[in-house]
C-alpha cells in the first residue's frame, strides 16, 4: 500500500487531484443550490417593486421591531450562553448528586415546542390565569401582581427552550477538553474558577458560538412565541407585510435583510477568531470529575433542578393536565398515524440532513477555497428565515420546475406530474431549513481533527470517501449523533414546511396542534403536544445513554 502511494507518478496524482477538486466543488454547489433555494428566491424578490410598503414599515413598524428584535436576540444569546455553558460545565467537570440524571434530563426542554411553552406559561401567569386569580382571590392582592411584559416573557421562554442547543454542543467540547486545561491553569497559579474563565471557556469558544448561533437564528425566525406574547419583532413585521399587506415580495425582502445581518455576524466572528485553533495539542485528556463538597454539591443539584423545573417540568405538568382533561374528546385512532408520520419524517430528515451536513463540511474541508466556504455559509442561513417564508421560498422554485416539466413533456389537463406531492420535496425543504443545525456540530468537530491525522492516513493509502469512513467517522460519531438529535427534535416540532409541502395524508402531531390552535383550542392541543414531547424524549434518552457509554 505504502509503496504504491509513493511510486504513483506525479502527473497522475495532479490529475486526480483536479478531478477530486471538481468533484468536491460540484457537491458543494449542488447542496448550496438546494438548501439555498429560498435565499435565491428572496434575492430575486429584491428586483420586484413593492410600492410604498417599505416606506410605511420604515416609519411605523421597523423602528420598534428592530429594537425589540435586538433586545430579544441579545438577551437570548446571553441567557442561553449562561445557562448552557454553566450547566454543561457542572455536569462535565463536577460530580454531584443527580449528575447522571441531569446530564440527559437538561436536554428535555428541547423536545417542547416553544409555542407550547409560551402558551402554557402565559395561561399560568396571565390576569385570568390560576396564579393571578389565586393572588387576587385568596391572597387579596397584597400589591399588583408584577407584570414582566411581552419582552421579557418572550426572552425567558425562548431562552429556556433554546439553552439545550448550547448545553449539548458545549458539553461535548468540555468532555473532550477533559480536566487537562484546568490543570494547566492550576499549575500556572489560577484557581479552578479562574481557570474556567481564562482557559476552558475560551477553548470552548467555537462551540459556544455554534450553539448560541443556533439559538439566535431560531429566535430570529420564531413566530409562535412572540405571537403568543404580542411582541412585535422583525419576524412579525415580515408576516405583517405578507399576511396583512398582501406582499410576499416585501416579506422576502425583509427576510433577506435578516439573513444579511446573520451572515455579516457569522463572518465577523470567523474573522475575529484569526489563526487560532481550538484543538488541544494533547491527546491525553484527563478523565474523571472533581467531587464537590457537600455544600457546593447541593448548590449544583439545586441549580440544575431549578432550571429543569422551570424549563420543563412546570409546562410539561400543565400540558399533561390539560391533555388528561381533553383526552376522551380528542384522542382517536388517527393519533397513531400522526405519531408514526412525525416519527417517520423526523427520522428520515434527521438521517438525510446529517449525512448532507457531513458531506458538506467534509467537502469544504477538502476544498480550501474561499468560495466553497461562502457557499456552505449560504446553504446554512435558512435557519434564520421565518418558517413560512422559507416554506414558500422553497416551494416556488420546486413548483416552477414541476410546471416546466409538464410544459416540456406536454402533460396537460387530467394528467400532470406534480413534484411537490412527493416525500423527497418535503425532506429537501427540511434540509434547506435545518442544514445549519446539523452543520454546526459536525463542522466544529471536524475542525478538531488535525490535518496530521489525514496526512498519516493518506500515507497509508486511505483517501477520499475511504478516509471519511475509516478516519473521520469514528472521531465524528458523537457530533453526528448530536446533529441528528437536534434535527430530529426540531422536525418533530416543525410546522410551516410540513404544512406546505406534506403529501396528502401526511398529517403529523405538529399539524394536529396547528389545526387546534388556529381555532384557539389550546387545551385540546395539549394532547398532541404531550405526544411530541414523549416521542422526542425517547431519542434524547437513548442517544444520551449511548454518548455516556462511548
Amino acid at each position, binding site marked *: 500500500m505504502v509503496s504504491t502511494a509513493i511510486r504513483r507518478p506525479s502527473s497522475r496524482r495532479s490529475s486526480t487531484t483536479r478531478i477530486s477538486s471538481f468533484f468536491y466543488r460540484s457537491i458543494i454547489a449542488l447542496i448550496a443550490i438546494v438548501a439555498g433555494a429560498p435565499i435565491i428566491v428572496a434575492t430575486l424578490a429584491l428586483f420586484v417593486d413593492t410600492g410604498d410598503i417599505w416606506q*410605511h414599515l420604515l416609519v*411605523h*413598524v421597523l423602528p420598534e421591531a428592530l429594537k425589540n428584535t435586538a433586545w430579544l436576540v441579545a438577551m437570548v444569546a446571553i441567557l442561553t450562553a449562561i445557562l448552557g455553558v454553566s450547566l454543561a460545565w457542572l455536569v462535565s467537570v463536577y460530580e454531584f448528586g443527580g449528575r447522571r440524571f441531569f446530564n440527559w434530563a437538561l436536554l428535555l426542554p428541547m423536545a417542547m415546542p416553544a409555542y407550547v411553552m409560551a402558551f402554557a406559561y*402565559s395561561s399560568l401567569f*396571565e*390576569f*385570568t390565569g390560576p396564579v393571578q*386569580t389565586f393572588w387576587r382571590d385568596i391572597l387579596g392582592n397584597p400589591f399588583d401582581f408584577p407584570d414582566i411584559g*411581552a419582552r421579557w416573557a418572550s426572552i425567558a421562554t425562548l431562552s429556556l427552550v433554546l439553552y439545550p442547543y448550547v448545553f449539548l454542543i458545549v458539553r461535548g467540547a468540555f468532555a473532550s477538553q477533559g480536566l487537562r486545561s484546568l490543570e494547566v491553569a492550576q499549575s500556572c497559579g489560577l484557581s479552578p474558577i479562574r481557570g474556567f474563565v481564562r482557559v476552558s471557556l475560551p477553548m470552548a469558544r467555537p462551540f459556544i458560538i455554534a450553539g448560541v448561533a443556533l439559538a439566535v437564528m431560531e429566535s430570529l425566525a420564531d413566530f409562535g412565541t412572540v*405571537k*403568543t*406574547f*404580542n411582541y*412585535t419583532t422583525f419576524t*412579525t413585521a415580515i*408576516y*405583517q407585510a*405578507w*399576511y*396583512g*399587506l*398582501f406582499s*410576499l415580495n416585501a416579506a422576502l425582502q425583509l427576510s433577506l435583510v435578516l439573513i444579511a445581518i446573520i451572515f455579516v455576524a457569522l463572518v465577523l466572528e470567523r474573522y475575529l477568531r484569526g489563526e487560532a485553533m481550538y484543538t488541544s495539542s494533547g491527546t491525553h485528556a484527563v478523565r474523571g470529575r472533581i467531587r464537590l463538597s457537600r455544600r457546593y454539591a447541593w448548590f449544583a443539584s439545586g441549580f440544575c433542578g431549578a432550571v429543569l423545573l422551570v424549563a420543563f417540568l412546570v409546562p410539561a405538568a400543565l400540558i399533561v393536565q390539560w391533555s388528561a382533561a381533553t383526552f376522551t374528546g380528542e384522542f382517536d385512532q388517527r393519533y397513531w398515524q400522526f405519531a408514526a408520520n412525525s416519527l417517520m419524517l423526523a427520522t428520515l430528515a434527521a438521517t438525510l440532513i446529517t449525512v448532507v451536513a457531513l458531506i458538506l463540511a467534509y467537502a469544504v474541508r477538502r476544498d480550501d477555497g474561499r468560495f466553497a466556504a461562502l457557499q456552505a455559509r449560504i446553504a446554512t442561513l435558512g435557519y434564520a428565515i421565518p418558517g*413560512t417564508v422559507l*416554506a*414558500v421560498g422553497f*416551494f*416556488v422554485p420546486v*413548483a416552477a420546475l*414541476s*410546471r416546466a416539466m*409538464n410544459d416540456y413533456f406536454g402533460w*396537460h*389537463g*387530467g*394528467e*400532470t*406530474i*406534480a*413534484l*411537490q*406531492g*412527493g*416525500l*423527497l420535496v418535503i*425532506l429537501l425543504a427540511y434540509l434547506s431549513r435545518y442544514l445549519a443545525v446539523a452543520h454546526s456540530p459536525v463542522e466544529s468537530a471536524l475542525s478538531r481533527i488535525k490535518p496530521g491525522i489525514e496526512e498519516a492516513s493518506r500515507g497509508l493509502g486511505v483517501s477520499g470517501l475511504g478516509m471519511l469512513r475509516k478516519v473521520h467517522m469514528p472521531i465524528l460519531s458523537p457530533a453526528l449523533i448530536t446533529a441528528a438529535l437536534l434535527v430530529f427534535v426540531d422536525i418533530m416540532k416543525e410546522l*410551516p414546511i410540513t*404544512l*406546505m409541502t406534506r*403529501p*396528502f395524508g401526511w*398529517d403529523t402531531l405538529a*399539524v394536529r396542534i*396547528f*389545526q*387546534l390552535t*388556529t*381555532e*384557539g*383550542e389550546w387545551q385540546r392541543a395539549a394532547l398532541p403536544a404531550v405526544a411530541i414531547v414523549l416521542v422526542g424524549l425517547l431519542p434524547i434518552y437513548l442517544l444520551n445513554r449511548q454518548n455516556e457509554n462511548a
Partner: protein
Amino acid sequence: MNTKLIVVACLLFLCAACGKNEDDSESANVATPVVVYSARAEQLIKPIFDAYTAATGVPIRYVTDSEQPLIQKLKAEGATTSADLLLTVDAGNLWYAADQDVLRPTYSEILDANIPLHLRDPDNAWFAMSVRARTIVYDTRLLKADDLLGYADLADEKWRGKLCLRTSAKVYNQSLVAMLISELGERETEIIVRGWVANLATEVFSNDTKLIQAIEAGQCQVGIVNTYYFGRLQKENADIPVAIYWPSAKTGGVHVNVSGAGVTRHAKNPDGAKALLEWMSQEAAQKLLGGDNMEYPANPAITPHPMVEGWGTFEASAMNVAQAGFYQADAVKLMDRAGYR
C-alpha cells in the same frame, strides 16, 4: 452491494409518493375525488366532508394550511395543482385569492339562490359558506346594553381604561377596520382607532377567548370579539357574566366576516368542486357549518344553532364583504400609524 440495494429502495420509496394525479376514469363506479385546500381547521371541515361523501359517494381529499401559504401554493403550482377547491377564512383572503387569479368564476343557480349577493364575490369567484359576526361584548355586572352604541362609540373618552382589544395582527381586526374605512373613510376611521388605543385597559390580547375571560375577570368592561368564541365559553358556563351587544343599523350595523370557498383556476375536477360547493350551501352542510362552530349560516333560509339564536338577531352591515380585502392593506397601515399593536 447491500448499500446499493438500500439506496435504490429508498429512492423508489421517495418517488412512490410523487403525486400522479390520475383520473380514476377506468373505474366508472368510483366517483372522481374532489381535492380541497383548506384554511379552515380540520376538525371544522372533516364532519362536513364526511357527510358529503356519505351522501354522494364522492371522496374528498384535503390538505390544511394557513390562508396565505395556500394561496401562494396555488399560485406557484399553476396548472400542475391538484386542488379543485379553495376553502378559506376571512373575506380579505378570499378577495386576495380572486385578485391573484387563483380562482375561477362559478355559475350556479343553486348558489345564486342560497348565498346573498353581499356575501359573494361580484365575479362569482367565491361564495361565503358561513358568517361570523365581529361584535361587542360587555360585562353584564357593570353595564347594560343601553350603555353601548357601536364600534365608533368605543373611541369615546368614557371608555378610557375599560376597553380590551385583540392584536391588530389578527385578520379579523384588519377586516373590521377595512370595513370601517370603506364606510367612513380613512380620516374618520383613524380617529376612531386612535380613540380605541387610548381607551385600552391593558395590552392587546393574542386571542378572543382570553379577551372574553379578561372581561369575566374584571380586567376590562367591553371588547370586540367574534361571537363563536363567546359561544364556546357560554357552552361551558351558561352563567358567564358577559353578553353580546349588536350595534344597530344606525351606527352602520354589525361587522360580519365570512368563511368561504371558490373553485380553483386550474381545477382538474371543476364540476365535482362546484357540486360540493352547492351542497355546502344547502341545509345539511349549513347546519353543520353553523352548528359545530357556533357561526351563522351564510344561507339566510337556515336557522343557526339554538344558543346562537338566543343571542338575538342583528342587522349586518350592508357592504359587500369583499371590501374588507380591498382595504385591508390600508387598514393595516392605519392601525400601525395609530399605534394599535
